[in-house]
Each structure stands twice: as C-alpha cells, then as structure tokens.
C-alpha cells in the first residue's frame, strides 16, 4: 500500500537507526512480533521523539464512540495499522484493550490513547485517538475522554442500526459541541442496510446522509476515507504554544515501578523533563521526570506542545494526586484551571468479604492495588456478623461491579463473597438529634443497617435514571409491561423508522440494577438495547424489611425496599432461606417483617427422626467420620437465636437473583 509505504518512509526519515534499505521498517519503539496489549518499556534508553514538528494546525484530537459491538475497537485497530503505529497482522484484535477482562468480554473498560502519524496531501498530521469504553457503566470515562477532543467518529452497525448507547453517546458529543463524523460499519455483512441507518441518523441526529461514511472496519474498506474526514472536518485544538502551560489530566494509571502516569491534553504551552509543575487541585509541586506520547505504549518525547496529547510522569506516588480533571501549570505561572469533571458517582453498592477471614489482609492489599487503577470504585470498611470483616464498595453499575470482581480474581487471584447490590438511597432527616449527629439534613444510605426510622425522617429519596430503549416495534407491548412492572414512567416514544422504536422511561435505579437488562434482552430475543443516564433523586415510599428466624433478626439480610415491592421481595427471600437452612430439632419460622408487621412467612419443619437405623460394631469408623465432619461444620455455623445457619446459606440468599 502506497500510503503505508509513505508513512514508513517518513518514519525512516525521522528515525535514523532504521536502514534506508528497509522502507517498511517498524517504528523504533515497536519490536517485531510485538504482542498486542503487553505493556512494554522497550522505549526506555532509546532516543526521544521531537514533537515540535507538529504545530497545532496539524493536530487532530478525536474519539470513537459506538454502541457495544458496533466495531469501535476493530476500527481503532485498522487506524493504528494504516498509520503504521502497529504492524499489520491478522492478530490485531482490540489492541487498545489491555486488560484480560476487556479481551474476554470484548468490551473496553479503561480508556486508552494512541498518537497516530499520517501524511495527508503532503502534510504530516498528528492524530490523537482517545479510545472510550463502550458500556453505559463507563460513560463517565467517555465524557472524560471527550474533554480532550474536538471531534468524534460515531460508529453505527449497518445491520443493527442506531441503538440505545448510540443515542447516549451522540448526545454526550453533541453537548460537548464536538464535530461528529458518522460512520456506518459492517457494510460487508449480508443483512447490512446502510440506507436505513442513514435515514435513522438523519431523523434522530439531524445529520445529512451525505455526511455518513460507509465502511467495513473488519476488511479495511474505506477506512482511509475516515482518516481523511477526521483531518478535513475536525478542527485543530484552539491553543498556543506561546501561552503558559495548561494541561488537563484526563486519565491516570498507576505503574508499580514509575508511580502515577497521568494522561494529559495540552491546552497551552509546552512541557518537558525538569519542568516544575503544580497541580491546581492539590497545589502540590512536582518535577517532571518524563513526558511522551502513547503509541499506545508510552513513548518518551523531548517535549509536548500545545494541542498535543500524551503522558507525564512527575513523581506522583498515589493516583489521588493525579485527580482526573485537574489542571497542571508551571510553578510561578498559575493559570485559570480548566473546568474539571464531576467525579464518577457510584450507582451500585455491594458488600465484599473474603471467603475465608484469614484472607482478609490479602484481599485488602489486592483491593488497594486495584483501586489505584480504578479510582471510580469507592471503598468503605464494613463488617457483617455472618460474613466477618469486609468492605462496602460502590460501583458505577453492575457491569462495573462484575468487571472489578473478575479483575480481582484474574489479576490478584482473590475469591470473594459479593452481597446483593443496593443503590444509594437518601433520607431527609426531621429529627434534630439525628441532624446534629450526622451534621446534615440529607444523608445517603448505602447500607440497610443504617436506614433511619420513619419517625425521624421527613422524606426518603431514591436514585432514578433516564433509560433509553431501542427496539424492533414488535416487542413494544412486552417492553412497556416490563417497564411498568419496574415502576418506570414513560417520558418519550419515537419511531426511528417503520421498524424501530425508541422509548424513554424514568426508572428507579434499584429496579434496573440487577436483572432488568437480562429481562429486556430475553423478552426481545436479544434485539432491544438499553442505556441510561443519571436522573437525580425522587421521593419514594421506602421501608426497611427485616428477615427474622424464630423472631430473631438476621441483620445481614435486612433490605431497603419500595413499599409496593415489599411482599414479593420478602416472599422471595424467605423461600430462598428455607431452601438454604437445614432442618433442625425444632420448627423454624422464617419471616419477612416491616416493623412489627409480618409480610411473608415460610416454615421449616423440625426434624422428627434422623437416627441411623443399623449401628452395630461393624463399621462405625465411617459413621464417626461423618459425625465429626458435622461437628466441625457446627463450629462454622452462624447462630441466630437457637437457629444454626450455615454461612453459605447467606451467600445463597444474598447473591444476585440471576445466579440462582
């Protein structure tokens, strides 16, 4: 390919160690046979790149946004190949998705960046691609990435058309006033219908069909046209190298050897090794050790200039020092800080406990290390009588929770007990005593054990989300029924074309947090898509439901529920508990209660006879072994009143309903 050749020639010119006889030689930081995804330090000790040859006018900063599985990562792989950033091989799959969990699930969790070099009409361009996560749980990462961009490529599947997340991502970019380049991907598929998708784009986003680029990222068809559009349509960043340094921290990672690596976008000035910089947020001073670009691995450069995107290492020891949204500036040359971001807000809370309490310290250190790289997880110490010492963690959503758990298992070999997820409720206190105690009137309740009594509360609040559902119209009836069952209120309904409908509903968050997505997928044969955004709090008739065993409260099973759902939830928990507790010497009443009122009950009958019939001298060895094992088991039981409950009984009840 001529262009690849050109790019490579350019590399050869830039990188003197490359023999001229090998025009297709690789960029110097990339050893032949590089395994995609491995974090390499091969750049160290090598010559640094000179970034001064890329003035602001030849820089384009952009993201790719798409609904999950619409081909965002595949397009990124092709762009990296075409620009010679990575070698063109058959095994470039999700190059920017470095985590094992990302590759396994085919999703992007952590935003990554890559600088691409591309010659267009004789001009060398620096194109900074800032990859974004594809799932709703990670939309905070999307908006964070967009803040460093001037434009986006909006990828839509030619077969599936616009999906819920396409809509959400479009509005994120639109509200940020970014240039949007619509791209219709997978035109090679048999069922591809790009005309229909173009019409949807026109109707929903008011973008002319002529603007759309039809591509197949898989086969590379028209991908270069996308690059050309990026250069032609997306404006260069508006900033000047002559201004004082003004760098936005839009992401950060933690490296065990080098400390915090902050990803930055320069909105003014330049930065290089030895510079003294200050964090606008912490006011702390640092000395720059290294700057560079991401290719996508770190590649040191002499300097970074205004408009460029790269990384800085400056002796920050903790991730919290590199606050996302922070502005870095020169010591003695303070600037007006850039508007920061709202920090990621946990939407889902769950208790996390070691399977075995002796593993507590190991889990603690694993959690500390993992949260270094995922500052969106909030961690509070917690303890439960049944499960021992642990934590209450806050996640952005259920997928985030699963991904975090999976990373704990895969990267730290930890196995944990995760309790049923809950959402952050609020209470407006009316009791003067409590207000004084909490120091505020409105409190957030993340653990049902802390639910304040109705008498001292003027109003309970529950978090809500605005959900977007895109579905083929034949499923509408079922979906509306599902939404009503989830206490949702319809806000909008729009036919995108003859076949597809977009619905908007205001949902109480707790109604969708566990199994809504699965239910939606199953009743629409997988065709409906769903996305949501935070929609604040609404007043709700919340109550705390206790679970009792023979009248004694089981603290770890207390739940906050909406009054309308109390009976059904209570019945469900009682039934599960009945299956999980073994019969005992006496009858056990398993009850769900609201205050003093019993709303559900199951009865576990007493054992009446269990003595083994035949026991002579014969082989009592085997019997003794069994009895001793039972005796050992007794020591591990949690006693609630007289009732002995095996620990796994709680796990079975607390676990998500879908794990039945």
């Amino acid at each position, binding site marked *: 390919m001529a262009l690849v050749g050109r790019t490579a020639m350019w590399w050869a010119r830039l990188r003197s160690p490359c023999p001229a006889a090998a025009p297709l030689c690789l960029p110097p930081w990339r050893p032949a046979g590089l395994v995609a995804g491995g974090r390499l330090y091969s750049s160290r000790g090598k010559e640094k790149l000179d970034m001064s040859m890329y003035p602001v006018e030849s820089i384009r900063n952009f993201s790719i946004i798409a609904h999950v599985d619409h081909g965002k990562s595949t397009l990124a792989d092709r762009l990296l190949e075409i620009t010679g950033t990575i070698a063109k091989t058959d095994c470039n799959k999700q190059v920017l998705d470095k985590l094992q969990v990302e590759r396994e699930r085919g999703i992007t969790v952590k935003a990554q960046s890559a600088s691409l070099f591309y010659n267009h009409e004789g001009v060398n361009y620096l194109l900074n691609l800032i990859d974004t996560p594809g799932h709703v749980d990670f939309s905070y990462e999307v908006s964070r990435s967009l803040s460093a961009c001037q434009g986006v490529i909006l990828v839509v599947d030619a077969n599936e058309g616009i999906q819920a997340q396409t809509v959400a991502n479009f509005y994120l970019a639109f509200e940020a006033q970014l240039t949007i380049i619509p791209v219709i991907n997978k035109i090679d598929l048999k069922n591809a219908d790009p005309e229909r998708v173009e019409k949807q784009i026109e109707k929903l986003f008011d973008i002319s069909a002529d603007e759309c680029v039809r591509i197949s990222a898989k086969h590379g068809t028209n991908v270069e046209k996308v690059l050309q559009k990026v250069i032609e349509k997306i404006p260069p960043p508006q900033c000047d190298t002559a201004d004082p340094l003004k760098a936005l921290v839009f992401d950060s990672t933690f490296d065990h050897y080098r400390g915090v690596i902050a990803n930055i976008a320069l909105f003014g000035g330049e930065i290089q090794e030895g510079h003294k910089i200050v964090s606008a947020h912490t006011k702390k001073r640092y000395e720059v050790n290294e700057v560079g670009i991401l290719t996508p691995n770190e590649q040191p450069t002499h300097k970074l200039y205004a408009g460029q995107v790269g990384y800085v290492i400056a002796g920050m020891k903790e991730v919290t020092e590199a606050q996302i949204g922070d502005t870095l500036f020169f010591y003695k040359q303070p600037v007006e800080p850039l508007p920061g971001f709202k920090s990621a807000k946990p939407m889902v809370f769950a208790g996390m406990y070691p399977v075995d309490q002796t593993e507590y310290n190991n889990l603690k250190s694993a959690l500390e290390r993992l949260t270094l790289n995922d500052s969106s997880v909030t961690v509070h110490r917690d303890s439960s009588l049944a499960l021992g010492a642990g934590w209450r963690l806050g996640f952005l959503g259920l997928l985030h929770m699963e991904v975090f758990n999976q990373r704990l298992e895969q990267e730290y070999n930890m196995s944990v007990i995760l309790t049923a997820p809950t959402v952050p409720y609020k209470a407006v206190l009316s009791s003067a005593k409590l207000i004084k105690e909490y120091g505020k009137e409105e409190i957030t309740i993340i653990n049902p054990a802390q639910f304040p009594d109705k008498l001292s509360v003027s109003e309970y609040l529950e978090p809500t989300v605005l959900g977007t559902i895109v579905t083929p119209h034949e499923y509408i009836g079922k979906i509306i029924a599902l939404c009503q069952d989830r206490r949702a209120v319809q806000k909008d309904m729009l036919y995108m074309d003859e076949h597809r409908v977009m619905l908007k509903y205001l949902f109480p968050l707790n109604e969708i947090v566990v199994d809504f997505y699965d239910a939606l997928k199953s009743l629409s044969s997988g065709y409906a898509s769903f996305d949501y955004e935070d929609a604040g709090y609404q007043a709700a008739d919340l109550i705390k439901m206790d679970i009792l065993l023979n009248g004694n409260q089981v603290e770890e099973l207390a739940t906050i529920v909406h009054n309308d759902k109390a009976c059904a939830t209570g019945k469900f928990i009682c039934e599960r508990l009945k299956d999980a507790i073994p019969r005992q010497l006496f009858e056990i009443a398993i009850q769900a209660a609201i205050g003093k009122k019993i709303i559900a009950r199951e009865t576990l009958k007493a054992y*009446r006879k269990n*003595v083994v019939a035949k026991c002579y*001298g*014969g082989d*009592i060895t085997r019997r003794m072994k069994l009895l001793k094992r039972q005796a050992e088991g007794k020591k591990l039981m949690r006693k609630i009143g007289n009732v002995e409950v095996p620990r796994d009984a709680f796990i079975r009840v607390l676990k998500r309903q879908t794990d039945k």
Partner: protein
Amino acid sequence: GTLCPQWPYCRKRCSYCNFNKYVVPAVDEAAVRACLVQEARTLLRLSQVQSVTSIFFGGGTPSLASPHTIAAVLEAVAGAAHLPAGAEVTLEANPSSASPARLAGFRAAGINRLSIGVQSLDDAELRLLGREHTAAEARGTVEAARGLFPGQTSIDLLFGLPGQSQDAWARGLAAALGLCDDHISLYQLTLERGTTLAAQVWGGNLPAPPQDLLADMYQTARTMLVAAGFRHYEVSNFARKGALSTHNLSYWRAEQYIGVGPGAHGRFVPRGEGGHSREARVQTLEPDAWMREVRSQGHGTRRRVVLSPLEQLEELLALGLRTDEGVTHERWGHFSPQLSLEAVFGEPGEAQDLQQQGWLLLDGGGLRCSARGLALLDSLLPDLLCQLQRR
C-alpha cells in the same frame, strides 16, 4: 470380649443390601471353615481375651454354612479361650436356608439363639426387597425356631419401604407381634448407594418415603411394642422378659470385639503383641484374598488404626447413646478415668441446652437420650462431640 465370625456368602443379592457379601456358584466350605478357625485362634491369641462372653455369626448368610462349620469355629474358640456354658451364641438365619432340620443341626452345633431375617410378612414387599422367601415360609421358620430356641428367637423387620403406608406397616407389625418370640429388631430401610432399590428410588421409578411418614411409623411401632410388653432398649431393638441380646449390648457398651472372616470389623487391644491401645481393625474384604492371607500369616487383618483416647470416647458416645441405659458412669470411667461425665457434660454448654430442651438426660445413671431425643440422636451427637472436643 465377644467374637463375630462372618460368613460372606449369599445365594442371592437383596435389593437393599450393601453389606460385604458374595454370590458364588460353589463355596469351598472346608477351606473357608479352616480359615475361620485359624483366624479365630490367631486373633484370640493376639487379643489375650480370657473369656468370650458371646458369639454372633453374621454375614452374608451364615445359615448357608453347615452346622459342622459352626461347630468347628465354636470348638476353636473354646480351645483358645474360656467360653462359658451360658454364653449367648447367635446365628443370623434366612427363612430360605433354615429348615427345621438345619435349625436342629445348628442347635446341636452349639447355637443357642437365632436372629431370623423375616423383613416383612407381605409377599409383595418381600419381592420388592428381593427376598427369596414368602411370608408363609418366614412364618414356618419362626414357628420352628421358637420350638427349638424358646425365648431366644429374634426377628428382623423393615419399615419405610417405597410406597408402604402407615396402615400397611401397622398391620404388618401386628401380624409380626402374633408370631414373634421375645425379641424384635425394627429397621428403617436405609437406601444405600449401589443397591438396586436406591437406584430405583433416586431414579424416580419408586417413591421415596416422606420424612414425616417415617417418623410416624417409628412412633407407631414403639407404641405398639411397648403396649405388648417390650422394652425399647436400643434405637432399633425391642425385647421382653429380659431377652436383650447381650452380644449387641456389648457393642453399644464399646466392649472389646473380635471380627473374624472377610470384611469383619473388630475393636480390641492387641495385648498378645504388647499393645496397650484399643485398635480399630478390618479384615480383608474379598473372601479368596482373605483366605490366602489367613493361610500365610494366620489372619487377614487389612487395616489397623490405633484409636486415640478422644476417638474412643467419641465412639462410646455414638454407640452408648443408642441404648436406653445410655453411657453409664461406669463405662465412661472405663475409658476416661480422669474426666467424669459430669465434668464434660455437666458444665454449661451443648449438653445442658439439650437437656433443657428435653432431648437428653444426665443423672446418676449416666448420660442418655430421652425417648423423643433417641429418634434425633444424629442431630444431638455433633453438638456433644463439639463439647467433648473442647475438653
């Protein structure tokens, strides 16, 4: 000490039985006899048991052996240790191999007590159990046995068969009461892995008896037997006129016993070789292998494990609490001279809780289950073991 010779052969497999038994076309009885005799001599010498207080021929189907074999083993015992004239010598018998003539032969050989595997007095139930005999044949055997061993004939009955109703069981038991002598063993059917019956029930081809029905059947039986003058002296055993099985009682009292024959279990102190600790012993399971070992080394002991003092006490609890006398202070003191029953179970803890709830009793007689506690012994034991282990 007591002796338990095993005859490992059966003519047919019963659908519920998972004992160590072998169905072979021809048994070389002389060879098996010689080995039983030799092993009995070896182990009696090893145990240094002075007096053999009871003998129980079990199996397999020991009534398939000839009276001559029984006599040979008894002679060997009498030659190696003291066998008192009144010692209880029981033979397990199947109605299908216990004609009046054979029974007379066994009596002449030295048997003085018979335990007959009647199992049921209903032909359909007998077929379900895979038994070879009919109810009428069982009746005939019991009647003949009562003539030959008056007051010393016991019958076995099974309850909780798939599909069996409470009424059917009560009727069967009433019929058995009209037939029986002074000792009855009532066993709740246990579905054992590897048996035809268990496979049928677990495979869904036969109904599993509900837990509550089993408890009712047990309760009904106890009431009927007690009304008929029987003493419920062990979980599954009833006797009147003092006809308790002394052999089985010595098991439950954790006395020494010597297992002889393929797959036999024993518990004794091998003083003959200088041992001081009670051992759990198992003889080789497979008859031919067992015989080779007996011929070459005098015995076929496959496994011997020294029981720690704690393990001995655990066994004593698990066995003793099955009886109505429970674990007496005397038996406990035999195994634990330092730490009394009160010292272990009289303190606040599991045993006291269970006493308060009416499952257990600790008094001058010792530690024992209440009548309703007995049916739930398997739930009480783990608690008691926990408390014991803490001492």
